[in-house]
């Protein structure tokens, strides 16, 4: 029999980026907050970045794909019909534990794709509306960067100066100067100075194995401790089975603990912060008599319009040792030179480029990077040519929404608590393929101009689905959107989404900064509008 917990003002499902931002704001505003998180807290000493085995544990225990990682707190995902494998982490801090920490804002045009380019849809808000929330979340997170990037309208820049850029970035910056192309120091959610009790980056290059220093921001450090100080409760090892509704309102959630015991958490308001796959899974798993096609799914769009940013990397190899196993990982510089639509290219929209190091010796020695010719007597020559001498442009192409790209519930697969797992159906579009081909060509030009003697390309990398977006899109019309401009579900007025599921379009930028800004905006609106908020009797 399920146990019942005291009714909370707000129940948040998921303790990652968006849950942390919203949870802290709501708790600091005096609301009682309970967060259910299927993972657990992680001490920084657990991360393997300062251990000799960092490269091999990063391929299993700390690998970002949950199906391959297979930890008890993960849920498996059927990826058989998806061109891209999703990446995430389940724990307090969420995917921020393993993300790169790259923190660019979306550009103004990203919010007006239909108006400007005649494709997809406009957002129900503008860059200018979101700008104050970008600035406030950047201050909480501790973003390092350089103010004045001409790719953006004027406004406050990051609170901290940029991280070291390195000799490789200097080569590329000089090349772009000669070409007349845009480049700029990349904003990163990684500290370049001591900030709010946290230590700065040590340039160890192991950001994606978890940051031992705590220099890379994650909400387990930057938000949940403050929320807890204001009375919030984070329940870990808590897998949510379904959202329960009554009389057209959410009344709470059923969840399962690590021992398999069933619980019910009652709340006045429920906030979904489980990422675009987890939130869609939960809504679809909450189908019932009143909602046969999934909770809050009168539009039929829950789970649809999944976007994951098709990704390619272009690596330039240089003659000199650039120590390209070190540095933030994270990016050093970015380029928006070819971000906007130019119809003469044969596709719409564009990609943001971010320059990253190329990793440690094991990464550079394996065939995935060096090809099968890596083996035999030439192994040593190829390794010597590559190790420490690379710089890599990562290309995130804008992924236009397509209703056929979607999350559904798998017929057979389930997690360790018996909760049905999601299945992804996702195909890379022709526009994305043309877009990446063009950007690979241009990024190769960048490398050659910088002096690279060889350029290596990885295109449409399978394990690149960091950016999970768009399965409960925002909009003003309940017939064509799932949540309104404040993240509130059209169908259930005390149910909100604050994660990447609400994205209307994907932009071509790393989305965590926008997820964070939207989460703060939604939380602020919840507080400001609380006297009008309908809640269960």
């Amino acid at each position: 029999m399920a146990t019942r917990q005291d009714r909370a003002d707000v129940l948040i499902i998921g303790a990652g980026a968006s849950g942390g931002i919203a949870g802290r704001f709501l708790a600091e505003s005096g609301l009682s907050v309970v967060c259910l998180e299927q993972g657990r807290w992680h001490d920084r000493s657990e991360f393997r970045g300062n251990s000799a085995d960092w490269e091999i544990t990063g391929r299993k225990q700390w690998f970002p794909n949950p199906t391959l990682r297979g930890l008890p707190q993960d849920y498996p995902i059927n990826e058989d019909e998806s061109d891209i494998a999703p990446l995430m982490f389940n724990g307090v801090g969420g995917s921020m534990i393993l993300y790169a920490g790259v923190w660019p804002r979306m550009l103004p045009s990203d919010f007006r794709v239909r108006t400007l380019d005649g494709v997809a849809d406009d957002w129900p808000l503008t860059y200018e509306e979101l700008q104050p929330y970008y600035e406030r979340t950047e201050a909480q997170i501790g973003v390092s960067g350089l103010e004045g990037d001409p790719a953006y309208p004027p406004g406050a820049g990051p609170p901290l100066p940029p991280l070291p850029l390195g000799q490789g970035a200097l080569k590329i910056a000089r090349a772009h100067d000669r070409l007349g192309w845009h480049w700029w120091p990349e904003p990163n959610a990684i500290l370049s100075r001591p900030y709010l009790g946290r230590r700065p980056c040590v340039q160890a290059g192991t950001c994606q194995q978890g940051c031992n220093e705590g220099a890379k921001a994650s909400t387990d450090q930057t938000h949940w401790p403050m929320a807890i100080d204001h009375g919030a409760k984070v329940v870990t090892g808590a897998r949510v089975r379904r959202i329960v509704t009554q009389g057209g309102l959410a009344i709470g959630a059923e969840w399962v603990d690590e021992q398999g015991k069933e619980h019910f958490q009652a709340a006045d308001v429920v906030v979904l912060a489980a990422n675009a796959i987890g939130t869609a899974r939960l809504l679809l798993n909450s189908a019932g008599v009143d909602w046969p096609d999934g909770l809050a799914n009168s539009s039929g769009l829950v789970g649809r319009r999944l976007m994951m940013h098709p990704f390619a990397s272009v690596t330039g190899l240089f003659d000199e040792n650039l120590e390209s196993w070190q540095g933030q990982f994270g990016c050093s510089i970015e380029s928006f030179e070819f971000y906007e639509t130019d119809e003469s290219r044969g596709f719409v929209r564009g990609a943001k480029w971010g320059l990253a190091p190329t990793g440690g010796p094991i990464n550079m020695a394996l065939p995935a990077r060096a090809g099968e010719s890596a083996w035999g007597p030439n192994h040593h020559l190829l390794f010597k040519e590559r190790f420490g001498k690379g710089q890599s442009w990562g290309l995130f192409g804008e992924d236009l929404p397509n209703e056929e790209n979607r999350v559904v519930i798998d017929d057979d697969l389930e997690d360790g608590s018996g909760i049905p797992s999601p299945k992804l159906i996702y195909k890379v579009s022709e526009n994305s393929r043309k877009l990446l081909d063009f950007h690979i060509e241009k990024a190769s030009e960048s490398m050659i101009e910088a002096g690279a003697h060889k350029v290596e390309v990885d295109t449409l990398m399978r394990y690149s689905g960091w950016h999970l977006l768009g399965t409960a899109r925002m909009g003003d019309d309940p017939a064509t959107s799932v949540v309104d401009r404040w993240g509130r579900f059209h169908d259930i007025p005390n149910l909100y989404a604050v994660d990447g599921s609400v994205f209307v379009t994907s932009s071509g930028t790393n989305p965590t900064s926008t997820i964070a800004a939207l989460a703060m905006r939604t939380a602020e609106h919840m507080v400001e509008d609380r006297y009008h908020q309908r809640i269960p009797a």
Partner: protein
Amino acid sequence: MSATIGKRPTVSDSVRTALGTIGDFLIPEAHHMPAASAMGVGTGQLDVVLRSRPDLTPLLEEALANADLSDVETFVARLRDDSPDAYDAVTLTIVAGYYMHPEIHDRIGYPGQVAKDVQRMSEREIYLDGLMELAQKVVDRGPIYRPTPTRSESE
């Protein structure tokens, strides 16, 4: 950098022998670099790898316990084509064992992932000669964002 220590992983002798043989095919002695077996990819370094990645053990046993290595090149090609997961496990085990060896670190000039104190780095070291001047030139070229209408086409 610390390494994981603990009980020696249990792997059959045939797997250890096979890893040394395949290792020398993939990474032979050449160009002043030692062969994989000389760095212990089937012995001590195998233990190092498997202490951190015990999940590799069953894959290695399945792939190599009864391997016919009279023609190593053909065996490796078949493994790659027919059992990609096993191939990935074998190649990762060999490469990891080799490149985690301190002697190899010395030879390739890899000090490990070194912690640098950003606070103590000079401005010159962080921003490098001329970098900020280059950034100013980007600013001088003017804004590149597209101005957007306040109202949406859909409104």
